[in-house]
């Protein structure tokens, strides 16, 4: 019994290492892309002869050395403050499935280290059909990307709840693509990968067209939750919003979703089409 648990744990940690190395590869590729053709104006790593930023201090610090104020440091600026935000990227009604879909992200922390909560789900017929919540520690990887490490909890009204370890990257890729890619390891050798990309096309200063893509991959069949292994589903959305101010914008749009592989079969068995196209309308806001 105990041996089994240890074995499970070992496999789990092995997978975590594997996943993190994949993520590292991804980061490396990003860093390479950053540096290319731009004389290393961005990213990269410090050359051996880079200047020591403390070279002019003569060993003094902000609290030690001549003329320093007695006691602990008094001057604390915003680089040491904590901030928080709640971003409701999507809060919308989908006409075909008659469901309300939400997609929030909240964070609390400093410039480089944050507690991040992401939650996505849908409510239909007055009940929470399914939801997925990530609880992550975000840490700055480079100027534009954070690594995110934590857990994900999936809850289903019909089906079986799942817990996952999560490791991902989120940030702004060259050409202004917002990316969010996370790999997951669950129990019984389950693995998953979720990827999301968004782009903002400013038609005017306030009228913004937002293409969006999201896909999910699973390592194993999960019949209880109607998920097949491999590429499970892909959604492409196009939303047009009007920013009354930068923090509040109603939108309308289209969302196209297609199921693949076994997931498609589960969908068909449940009387759903494997491809869905629907009109959405909602609000995007943050505070």
């Amino acid at each position, binding site marked *: 019994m105990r041996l089994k648990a240890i074995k499970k744990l070992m496999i789990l940690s092995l997978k975590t290492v594997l996943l993190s190395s994949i993520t590292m590869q991804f980061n490396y590729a990003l860093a390479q892309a950053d540096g290319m053709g731009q004389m290393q104006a961005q990213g990269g790593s410090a050359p051996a002869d880079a200047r020591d930023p403390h070279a002019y201090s003569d060993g003094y610090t*902000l609290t030690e050395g001549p003329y320093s104020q007695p006691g602990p440091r008094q001057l604390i600026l915003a680089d040491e403050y904590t901030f928080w935000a709640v971003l409701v990227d999507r809060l919308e009604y989908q006409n075909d499935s008659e469901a309300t879909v939400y997609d929030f992200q909240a964070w609390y922390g400093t410039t480089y280290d944050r507690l991040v909560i992401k939650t996505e789900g849908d409510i239909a017929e007055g009940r929470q059909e399914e939801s997925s919540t990530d609880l992550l520690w975000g840490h700055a990887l480079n100027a534009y990307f954070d690594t995110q490490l934590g857990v994900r909890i999936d809850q289903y009204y019909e089906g079986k709840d799942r817990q996952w370890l999560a490791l991902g990257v989120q940030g702004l890729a060259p050409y202004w693509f917002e990316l969010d890619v996370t790999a997951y390891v669950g129990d019984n050798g389950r693995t998953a990968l979720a990827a999301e990309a968004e782009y903002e096309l400013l038609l005017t200063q306030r009228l913004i067209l937002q293409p969006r893509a999201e896909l999910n991959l699973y390592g194993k069949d999960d019949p209880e939750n109607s998920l097949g292994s491999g590429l499970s589903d892909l959604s492409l959305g196009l939303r047009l919003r009007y920013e009354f101010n930068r923090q509040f914008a109603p939108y309308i749009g289209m969302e196209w979703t297609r199921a693949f592989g076994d997931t498609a079969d589960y969908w068909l068995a449940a009387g759903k089409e494997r491809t869905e196209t629907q009109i959405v309308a909602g609000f995007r806001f943050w505070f």
Partner: protein
Amino acid sequence: MKRSTDLSLPNVSRRQFVQGLAFGGVIAAIPPWLQAGTSTIKGLDSSPVLSGKHIDLVVDQTPVNFTGVTRIATTINGSIPAPTLRLREGDEVTISVTNRLPVPTSIHWHGILLPFQMDGVPGISFKGIAPGETFIYRFKLRQSGTYWYHSHSGFQEMTGMYGALIIEPRLGERHSADQDHVVQLSDWTDEDPMHVFSKLKVQSDIYNFSQPTFFDFARDVSKMGMQGALEKRQMWNSMRMNPTDLADLSAATMTYLMNGTNPAGNWTGLFRKGERIRLRFINAASNSFYDVRIPGLKLTVIQADGQDVEPVTVDEFRFGPGETYDVLVQPQDDAYTIFAQSMDRSGYARGTLATRQGLSAPTPKLDPVEWLTMADMMGRMNHEGMNHKGMDKSATESMKHPGMHSGMTNSQHSNHKMQGKKHAAQNPLSKPSPNVRHASSEYGPSVDMRVDMPSTRLDDPGIGLRNLSQRGLRPQGHRVLTLADLKSIDGVMDDLRPPLKELELHLTGNMERYSWSFDGLEFGKSTPVSLRHNERVRIILQNDTMMTHPMHLHGMWSEIETDQGELRVRRHTIPVQPAQRISYLTTPHDLGRWAWHCHLLFHMDAGMFREVVVS
């Protein structure tokens, strides 16, 4: 041409219309037009004037209305701007500051040489002034000129704590004037500054409503073809940089003020025909660069940052928070508009010079937003390939030299044979080092770009001010002041020793994360810069960001030199343009700890702040 503005507001945009509801400023204060009837024409300004050797200041909360909405400001003696202090060179002054706020406060005397305990930076020079407490500042005035003072605590400066500080020279002014007006530019937001700051942490372009749009792109495609339009954007988009990132805060939240009066309020300075007027321009804004001009009048700049310069006549100048310029004008007509548009062209402060109250001249239109150029992002690397459209003539001339190898400036190239060897043999520090050395801490998440081939030119007026006549935005021959035009009068700079030490620091930031720093290290992670008492030191500041940073070094002068090591002008606040590498010398005569920071208040607070120890 002149007309009364009491009812008609030229160029009324939606925002100015809102501003027009209020005459402006502190609600309890007497409006300037009322003062006009009671005071003499001489020295008429919005703020009361205090002089002598003993000054009492009280910091308190005061309701104000700049936009039609009442807000609580932090004020000094109940006015915005704070009282103008007119002091005398050589005097030992005693200034008592009483804090009636519920939070600690402080006052910093910007540009004044004094013992560090009197410099007024909480946590560096002293503890700050606790609520209910009175702090006595006492120092001898060792200089003369136009300066200012402001809170150095939190965002109090942004909510109203700033005033003019004029020190009359012991031996009389070098230039006589019949009228003497302080023109203090500032900015105001109805929002809580901390809230504004935290919004920038979430979305740093939240106040930028001049962003590139799809229709701009379509326009460019029809003008320059698909390839041209794509090329124009390629570098920006691949690097995730915004070519209209000219200011963090715009008129979307700021109201721009002249002597505490909004544009509709039309602050008016009076003169009699034929008089010579001295205008003491002070940029007391929290976060706004201003481009100032008075259509119809030549501006003869006679002082920069309180220090006399060889007079230079221009039509327009740009200055950032912390900088001051004294200007002589000789109006012939009855009314002129003092027009100060914000660098991002989202709004303006405006006032009038007139022979009597109620007159006004036309208010110019805001200039269109000009995209930053590749040179602003990358320094010199793209000069060869780019068209020189955005450059003034001298800039173009100086770029024509071929063979810009790394680490060699244009002028150096031409002068290399004549001077290079001679100087090198004498003293390797006779010229500022052209070799870019990034700090090891510039390769992390705190820095979104680094410049490898910075420009060392001082004659670039900067984005939005280049080639104005050719672009049809100003009359022919319009001249904009540049740093290269400024030369201190003989005798102003007294230390002619060559530097013994050279320090290089880079101005860095990450716009997406809204983080600002020196060398990629925000204040909390930094260590002080240690200088030896009375030693002559060279400081090289290289700007690795796309914004202009007005860099203010407390407690000692910053004496700008050319890339050839020629001393030019003494300043206390130096604007460093994007991708520019600027060099200055200093001699720390006063022991202690001093602040050194970007005077854009939000950049300072985000961490572009260092301590300097003189021991």
